[in-house]
């Protein structure tokens, strides 16, 4: 969009200052995590010292985090759960998205609507009965309790996104392959799926961050310390009653945020595509 620039002062007031404020407000809590995690306790719990920086940075909180809690184990659990549930969701979403976008069958429209509706069903509505279901299947307090339930919100998202993506790939490419003798399945697997790789990547990144961040199901279904994910472990094991261990808490929060931030920073464009694609019909 063509934007006309006025005087430098006017531009500062209408553009630089608001943008600067917005960026500061956005990033300040992250700065706070970092600074808290390296300040020694005697500074953290002093009302006198300036809280914005420290002259005595320490790694003690990180040491405590790894020595006194099972943080490394939680990190591994989170990675494992996020990876497997993303893989399952991508597999299902890819097949379902293809079917709904490309194949002609009687139930296509109602099934598409049904999957879209499940996409909007929040975990808050289902976690109580789902706890019973997980128990009945003998999955409670195992990684599979969440690996199999995360797809309930990941699959509809992946399906929806990939359905939109398949619609942008011209049908004719597949038809050419069919004329050259490829079967229906071959045309799908060898022609359409490779062309959908950018869409699969977008859906995968988004699904991975969603399962990395999930809280409610993990809180309800995973109870023993060695089964927890990072969000649950940090929240439940570093808060005892009214006592918050702020140093290790912020160290854990920082280390739990960095992996998703890194994955995201490599695939910003894919992530943004997923984000904007997710809301478009």
């Amino acid at each position, binding site marked *: 969009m063509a934007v006309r620039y006025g005087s430098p002062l006017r531009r500062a007031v209408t*553009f630089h200052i*608001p*943008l600067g404020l*917005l*960026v500061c407000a*956005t990033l300040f*809590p*992250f700065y*706070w*995590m970092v600074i808290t995690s390296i300040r020694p306790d005697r500074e953290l*719990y002093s*009302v006198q010292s300036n*809280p*914005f920086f420290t002259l005595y940075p320490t790694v003690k909180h990180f040491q405590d985090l790894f020595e006194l809690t099972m943080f490394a184990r939680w990190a591994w659990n989170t990675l494992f759960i996020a990876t497997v549930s993303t893989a*399952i969701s991508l597999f*299902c979403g890819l*097949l*379902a998205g293809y*079917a*709904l976008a490309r*194949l*002609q*069958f009687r*139930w*296509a429209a109602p099934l598409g609507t049904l999957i879209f*509706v*499940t996409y*909007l069903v*929040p975990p*808050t*509505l*289902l*976690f*109580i009965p789902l706890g*019973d*279901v997980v128990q009945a299947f003998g999955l409670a307090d195992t990684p599979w309790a969440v690996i199999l339930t995360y*797809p*309930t919100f990941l*699959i509809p998202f992946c399906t929806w996104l990939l359905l939109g993506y398949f619609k942008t790939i011209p049908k004719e490419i597949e038809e050419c392959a*069919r004329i050259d003798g490829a079967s*229906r*399945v071959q045309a799908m697997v060898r022609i359409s799926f490779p062309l959908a790789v950018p869409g699969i990547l977008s859906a995968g990144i988004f699904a991975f961050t969603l399962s990395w961040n999930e*809280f*409610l199901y993990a809180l*309800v279904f995973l109870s023993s310390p060695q089964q927890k994910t990072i*969000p649950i472990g*940090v*929240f439940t094991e570093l808060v005892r009653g009214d006592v918050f261990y*702020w140093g290790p808490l*912020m160290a*854990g*929060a920082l280390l*739990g945020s960095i992996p*998703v931030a890194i994955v*995201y*920073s490599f695939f*910003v464009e894919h992530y943004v595509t997923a*984000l*904007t694609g997710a*809301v478009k019909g």
Partner: protein
Amino acid sequence: MADHRIEPMLAESASPAAPAGAVPIAGPTHEVSRPTRLGLLLEREHVLAGVLLTPTLVILALFIAYPFVLGIWLAVSDKVVGRPGNFIGLDNFRVNLADTIFLRAFQNTFVYTFIATILKLALGMLAALLLNHHFRFKRVVRASMLLPWIVPTVLSTLAWQWMFDATFSVFNWVLLNAGVISTRILWLGDGTMAMGCLILVNVWRGMPFFAITLLAGLQTVNPDLHEAAEIDGANAWQRFWRVTFPLLKPIMLVVVLFSMIATFADFQLIYVLTRGGPYSSTHVFGTYAYEIAMRAAKLGQGASISLSLFPFLLLVIMFQLWYIRRHD
């Protein structure tokens, strides 16, 4: 379109079955492997569609449809942990309607959703308009703007909780040292203040989603329209309301609906920051249902609370479906 292509293939495979001597005929077409019975079945689009949709439908049936039905049953039963429940009709809902904490949670859910959504829309729009300028480090700024949205909400909310700490709040430190206040503010000390803090954190977390999706919408607005309006003498304010706003309305509506559903059903942000406190004054449907079902072990009662958000949810979903259908 594909149907008449299936016919000759079916005929081709049917013929070798009759005379045994016909098998060598397959020789010349050795490039294409002879279709198996399964392969032929998969040539039919409705069969293939059924196969492709099965994994998805199985998971959704087991972990969404079945729990949903079970949830309705729990809501009309007196089930508690460790004991089978009996049908008690609408008693749970009657108890809810007489429960002041439930009524407060009901009210909180709406206040939280509407105020937070309006603020997210306004700030997100502002952020999108700012990001739509050309400036140095634009990509870095846009990427960092999304950080609150992508990092685990629990972890960033813990950072906010530390910033709102009764004794060591950084906001209090700044305000005290600047001489603005003389006694510490208890940010999470009473229901109204705590609700304000919850909305602030929710806006901080959700605003990037609005900003980035609205930015994507802004980038599709044809610059010629703005130039034409400018030549006709429209100022920036008028150009926004008369040109940009109407063009963005469809995407804005969809983003608002999505955000409303997520905010309405929010659990983690409130549970981490206030746990529904102080004195159960900041509960929403999600946190109160958790409190009753998981902490008090009253599964039936808890299910009836979380089911109470369903009518509103249904309304928004139906509106959204109607809207999508109208625009297709």
